[in-house]
């Protein structure tokens, strides 16, 4: 081997660097991709369960991600009753969005992450929301 020709970087460094890189990629990808969901700690809204019987879900908070379908009713005091199409489901879920959450600017088709709570009569109230 030529002396100068031997001055390619050592295999060890290379391998190590590669491994580190892959790790970084994987971890980064994971955390940044999946871990970046808002309200990550709240469980996902159980659409099917809610549709069959909402009584058992009462009082719980859930994370609901979906697009706003329709504005059903509105009053300046109570807020807005909208229907949300959850991601991955066809069934619209009615959600009451209080005025404090800026329901006025909500547009049809906008995607949101809602933090919701199921209250009396199975009515879904939004306690927080971020645009998705």
């Amino acid at each position, binding site marked *: 081997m030529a002396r100068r020709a031997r001055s390619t970087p050592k295999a060890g460094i290379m391998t190590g660097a590669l491994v580190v890189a892959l790790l970084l990629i994987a971890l980064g990808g994971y955390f940044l991709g999946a871990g970046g969901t808002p309200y990550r700690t709240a469980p996902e809204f159980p659409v099917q369960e809610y*549709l069959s*019987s909402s009584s058992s879900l009462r009082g719980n908070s859930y994370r609901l991600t979906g697009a706003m*379908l329709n504005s059903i*009713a*509105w009053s300046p005091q109570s807020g807005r009753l909208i229907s949300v199409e959850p991601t991955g489901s066809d069934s619209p879920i*009615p959600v009451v969005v209080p005025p404090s959450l800026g329901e006025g600017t909500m547009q049809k088709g906008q995607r949101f992450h809602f933090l919701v709570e199921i209250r009396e*009569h*199975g*009515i879904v109230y939004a306690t927080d929301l971020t645009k998705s």
Partner: protein
Amino acid sequence: MRPLLAALFVFLPGAFLAAQQNTGGAGDSEAATGGARPPQMNEGFIGRDIPAFDPGSEVASFDGKLWNINNNRLLRARFEKYLNAPAATDAADVAYRKTIDRILELLAPGNATQKNIDEAFALLPKASDYKDDANLCRTMSDAIHAARVSLETIKNLKRENTLLEKQRGTAEWNNMMAARSSALEVAGGSDAAIAAQQENVRFARDAKMASAKRILSDVAQTIENNKLRIALTELNTRGHLQALIMQYFATRRFEHVLMANRFYRAIYKDGDNSIDVYKRMVESLPVNRDAGQARINAEFDPTVAAAGGSSDRGTGAKAGTDGAAAGVSNRTEGSGGNGGSFAARGMKVGLENFSIESLTGGAAVAAQTLSKLVSSLSQVDSLANEAIRDINEGVEAYKFLLEQGELNSAVERLAETFALGEFMPSVRLLPREDKRRALKFTQMKNELVAALEVNDLTRAEKLVNEMTDLSADFDASKPLAKIETAKTISAMHLAKAKNAAVSGDRAAMESELRAATEIWPRNPALAEVGQNIFQQTDLQQQALSELQRLIEQGDHRAIFRQNAKFIAATALYPEWQEKLGTILEAMTEIEGSLQRAREIQQRGDAAGAWESIQLASVKYPEDNEINRLRADLASGGAATFVQALNKGDELEACGESGAALAWYLDAHRQYPPSKFAGEKISALAERILPGASPAAP
């Protein structure tokens, strides 16, 4: 027609009027008979058992039936058979002809020497050998022989009677004497004594007279008996021979008439050729319908005493065979029979089998009638001669007409000639070729008659046309007119039947149809119309009963489907119409809803279709189709939509407004125009956000 024959047969209608029995018959309809009187009216054997011809109507009477010469079935058959047969030119026929001719020649007036007569007499049995003779010559020969023999018997009886007359004169003189000598002297005394005395005298006288009377009576009796015997013998022989001659004449054996006549004259040289004996005999005959060869049958029964010397009129006598006893009135005219009650008390006389062919007996009246018309044998003779001449001329006329192409007349002429002179040589010797044309035409005529008989107008018309082509003088107008009339009448009846059917008068329709059928059974229109009509009325009735059944079953749909039929059926029944109307209205609405729903469904909008039909089902919950479509949609294309609504309802009932709203929203999502979903959503929205306004600001 020759006037003589006309005269000969003109008596028939008058005679037949006297004793009428209308039994009618198939061949006797007015059309067939051309208006002539039915033959069963004929009591007499002539026209009944013997063919008789009525020239006025061209009707012959035979076998108890009235036959138009050209109509009568049997005659037609015989005539056709004759036309088909070859001329009678075979050996037997020729030999027979020769024999008859020889006999006639031997017996010709002026030539009838005893020798010839005997020779002729000897030929009779020979002639009888031939079939054509039908044993007539033999009968004749027997009668002639009997007649001869009887002459002697009668002579003896007459001589005896002369002697007995003398004896009776003597007895009568003695009787008278006895009566005068015993004049009644009466002494005086009282009435009773006088009466008793007269009585005694009388008694003594009577006793004296009695024996004389007895002798007188005996003699008279014997004379009478002898007279009876003479008469009987005469009857048996002369009468028989006369009857034979009459019979020959009646059966158209004119040659035999001549022969028999000549023999008669040869035997009975007294020049008396009256047929009195025959007449007397015939007039005493009862009506008898016996069939078979006519024979005079007489029995002498001496136990039957003669009544006392009054001229008897109307004494009954029994017929010789199975007799239906009937009163026989003696209507001899101008006969000199005042004393001799010929009316046979103590004598049985009958006629049996009075015919050559198949006579059906009962020829008494006919014989009587015949005897009235003919008074002497010479008259019969000349009539026979005339007949023969007529026949010969008829044949010639036929040939002539045939040449002229006047087939109709020719055939008619031949038929007449045949009817009269069937047995005559000129007729029998007519060559076959000459007869052929007549045959064809005759057959067609016969067919025409048959067709008209059964009212097969189509065939009749065809035949008429053919016959018109065949014969120059065939008058098709009458049959055609009949055909056309019949057709028209049939058509009219059909039309009436149709009208009756339409108006619902079933009885009238049926009667009209029957009338049409009768007139023209094979009318092609008949079957069609009949069928239609019957169908029509049948259908109407069926439709109504079906409608009732369907209404009871509540199957309004079936009614709706066949609404046209039912509308037609109920056209005349207002209360049915009303019911039907109501049903059809409802069904129209239902069908409309179904149609709408299906259309919506076809556009792919199952949910919309379901909503549409759901609204209809509220109004008509019983309708199967609506329910079926609703169920189909609910389980098919609109399944998820309906399910969403149902789930929403369920949850709403449990008080879970949020989840219920979610289901309604889902239903709305599946079918945005949904009224149901929209309403429910609004209602729930109001509950969740009370006082909120519906749409987005």
